[in-house]
């Protein structure tokens, strides 16, 4: 990994401990140590860690440090979109808190300000961590008795929603759609959530991906009237499109075709100011994701090339590839601040940025 760029600053910090701070390994450690940590939160925590590990003495220095650190971090990931939401958010937060404290800035006591900033940021992280349980509460009215929930992909939020509904003594049916990718992480997650739901007496079915349409058509009458799709999003783009496990777009299309509402659950720190023009590889590449689904082979020899590929990520995380679900297919976004339409995302982001 390349050393951090802030060594090239005009006024290098007196004690240059920052170059020793490996933000990527710190991030990977965070991700692997706590499976409930999302990439965005881990990225935020890593940036706060670098802020406390180094001692920048001016605002510009702090901001440059954060910028270069986030660039390094994002470059190390095969899918930096969820991380970028977090890094942008914390940088924005720090800039706004600098703006709001002109009185303290004039006092020259930057170390104190920095300390305060770090404390605030930690508070901010702890607040965002509680978002998941809030989402579960908001989603509860959607899961009524005897409703059927289709869930796809491993999502901590979707999982939390289902568990919360089960704990609230709702009786509903869950159908897990499994993709045919041989992702061990996904399999374990699926196994665990199945176990948890069964413990609460919730019937669970697991169906392979190609059978979704058939399964919908096979639902018994009373259940068929109350069906919803519940997916988790890794990031939500500015037009309300959701970046989620590869296949989500297809699942959402099937839902739309069957007039079944399709909800995406996401904490609002996953909102990011990226705007796709369409929903393919090129849009993902614009946002920095190294993923190529479509590859044509020119001869029979390059057999291996025809499979889609995701560049191996150096860190952990669930990397089965992602796709973008366009806002037209999304009935609503379940966030900790309420149920949102896709257009509301832009509003939230603008509020945050201006």
């Amino acid at each position, binding site marked *: 990994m390349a050393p951090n760029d802030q060594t090239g600053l005009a006024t290098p910090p007196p004690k240059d401990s920052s170059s020793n701070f490996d933000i990527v390994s710190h991030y990977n450690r965070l991700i692997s140590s706590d499976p409930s940590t999302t990439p965005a939160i881990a990225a935020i925590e890593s940036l706060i860690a670098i802020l406390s590990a180094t001692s920048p003495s001016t605002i510009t220095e702090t901001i440059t440090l954060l910028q270069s650190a986030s660039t390094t971090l994002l470059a190390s990931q095969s899918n930096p979109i969820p991380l970028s939401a977090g890094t942008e958010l914390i940088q924005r937060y720090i800039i706004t808190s600098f703006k709001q404290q002109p009185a303290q800035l004039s006092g020259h006591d930057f170390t104190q300000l920095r300390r305060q900033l770090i404390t605030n940021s930690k508070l901010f992280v702890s607040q965002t961590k509680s978002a998941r349980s809030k989402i579960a509460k908001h989603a509860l009215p959607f899961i009524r008795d005897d409703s059927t929930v289709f869930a796809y992909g491993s999502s901590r939020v979707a999982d939390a929603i289902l568990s919360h509904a089960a704990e609230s003594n709702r009786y509903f049916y869950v159908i897990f759609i499994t993709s045919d990718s041989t992702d061990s992480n996904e399999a374990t997650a699926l196994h665990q959530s199945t176990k948890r739901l069964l413990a609460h007496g919730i019937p669970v079915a697991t169906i392979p991906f190609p059978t979704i349409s058939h399964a919908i058509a096979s639902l018994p009458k009373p259940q068929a009237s109350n069906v919803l799709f519940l997916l988790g999003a890794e990031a939500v783009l500015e*037009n309300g499109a959701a970046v989620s496990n590869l296949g989500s777009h297809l699942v959402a299309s099937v839902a739309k075709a069957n007039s079944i509402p399709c909800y995406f659950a996401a904490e609002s720190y996953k909102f990011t100011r990226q*705007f796709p*023009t369409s929903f393919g590889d090129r849009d993902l590449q614009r946002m920095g994701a190294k993923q190529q689904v479509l590859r044509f082979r020119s001869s029979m020899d390059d057999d291996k090339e025809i499979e889609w590929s995701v560049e191996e990520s150096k860190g952990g995380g669930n990397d089965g590839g992602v796709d973008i679900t366009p*806002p037209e297919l999304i009935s609503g976004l379940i966030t900790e601040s309420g149920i949102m339409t*896709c257009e509301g995302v832009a509003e939230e982001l*603008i509020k945050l940025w201006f």
Partner: protein
Amino acid sequence: MSENAPSTNGVSASSSDATPSFATMPDPASIAEQTPDTNSGARQERPQPKQASTAENIAEAGAGVKLTGAQLKQRKQAEKAARRAEKVTVKGEQAQIQQVQSSSSGRPDVKQRRSSQGEQLQTPQSHHKRKLSNQPPEPGAVRIPFRPGQQPPSTPQTQQPPQPKHAEKRVPLVSHLYPSGKPASLTTASREIHPSVLTLALQLRNLTIAGSTARTLSLLLTLKRVIKAYTTPPSTALSRHLTTHLSHQISFLSSARPLGIAQGNAIRWLKKLISQLDPDLDDNDAKKFLCDAVDSFIQEKVTLASEVIASQACSRIEAEGETILVFGKSSVVEKALLKAAKDEGKKFRVVVVDSRPLFEGRNLAKGLLRAGMREGGDLDGCQVVYSLISGLADALEQNCVTKCFLGASGMLGNGSLYSRCGSAMVAMMAKQYNVPVIVLGESLKFTAKMAVDSLSLNEVGDADALVERDESQTFTSDVPPKQEDAGKKGGGGKKKGGDEEQKEEDEDASKNGLLESWRDHPNLYLLNLMYDITPKDYLDMVICELGTLPPGAVPVIGVHGGDE
């Protein structure tokens, strides 16, 4: 209107009225080339009323005998009543109606001048007719022939240009869109109208300045000039009086052409700024402050904004293989395309879709070609395809369009796009072909107004623009150029020479055909709506200087941007 010696009075008053407004004119050089033109035009106009009215007098005096002023005066008493009737006839009834309609102090000179130019288009009112018919013809009076009953329909015979009917024929459905006041012309301007405002009004009226951004820019620059020339009258405060002063100028401008959304936003900003001025501020300081503020507003909201938008739009164009569909002409779109081609060296194809009657797309196509987007040009590798909107589907399919860029005249509060008529069609068609539709517009153009149809919020253009004209450069003209015509006929006309003549006659008839004389057909209306509304469902994103937004988020920005 005074009935004694109306012409002499009128002329003297007119010169005394007109002079101050031109005398106070500051250096006109900075307003485009038009300034000297209009200026001289205005000067030429001044003597005109005199000539016209002396001509009237001659006619009154009888049979073209030239009389001196003294003789005229002698006969005045006897001919008083006759003259009253004649005046009405000769000038058409508009002058009097204007008197009724004009809100400002009815200066007879202004009306006379205007009516003598035949510029005014007004509906006759019945009481004038009554006045006329009640008037007993005096035996001694020589009268210009007039047929009281025929007045409005017989306009061609009564030496009036056909325009008076123009205003009468209004499509009832959109009657609210037609301008209610008198159309702006040099003669309708009251004396407090600044000369540069006059210039701008004419430029706006003639669509010399047509684009939304250009209109806003020129408005701000003109208002800046007005502010510079302004002196606060005694016992008033600048912050109180300047806004009313500007309001006069602005209402004159809006009589030339209804204000656009961006113009409205800019004016609102300026007025708010003025009203918030410290009343203790010295006039010169206040004026300087305002001028600087206008400059930085232009810099921030127009110049830099369009730069930012252009570079953001550029980043949406990939290095190779893109085909961009554009409609009409938008300054920001042009800037974005040129930036992508020039500064970033991207190779792409531009499909310019154009429509009647303004053919603004030609300007864009020309601009792109001039910049070198052609074979052997500076930007070789980029192509320009020009198509009319009637060939839109074909243009989309043949060229494998990958993106559609639209300019905006306004973004409405419900996320709809308010833009040149035809944009909605282009957006819908692009959507049909799964082409992302991207709107480029400064946040200055955002408004909280809403519209779901194109009728509630629109502007009616000149209906005559829709009439086919025999212009060889008009692509849509269905009358082929003469030579081609002759060649074709030569080939086919051997067999039936008789038919040929017949055909040519028909052609002549169609040339001056139905549309040309649309005013004479009571049930035929022409409607030239300038704008249309594109619902947000057909738009994918809006790029403004604050970033890229979905169209639904426009009202959120509106709070920060337009209504500031």
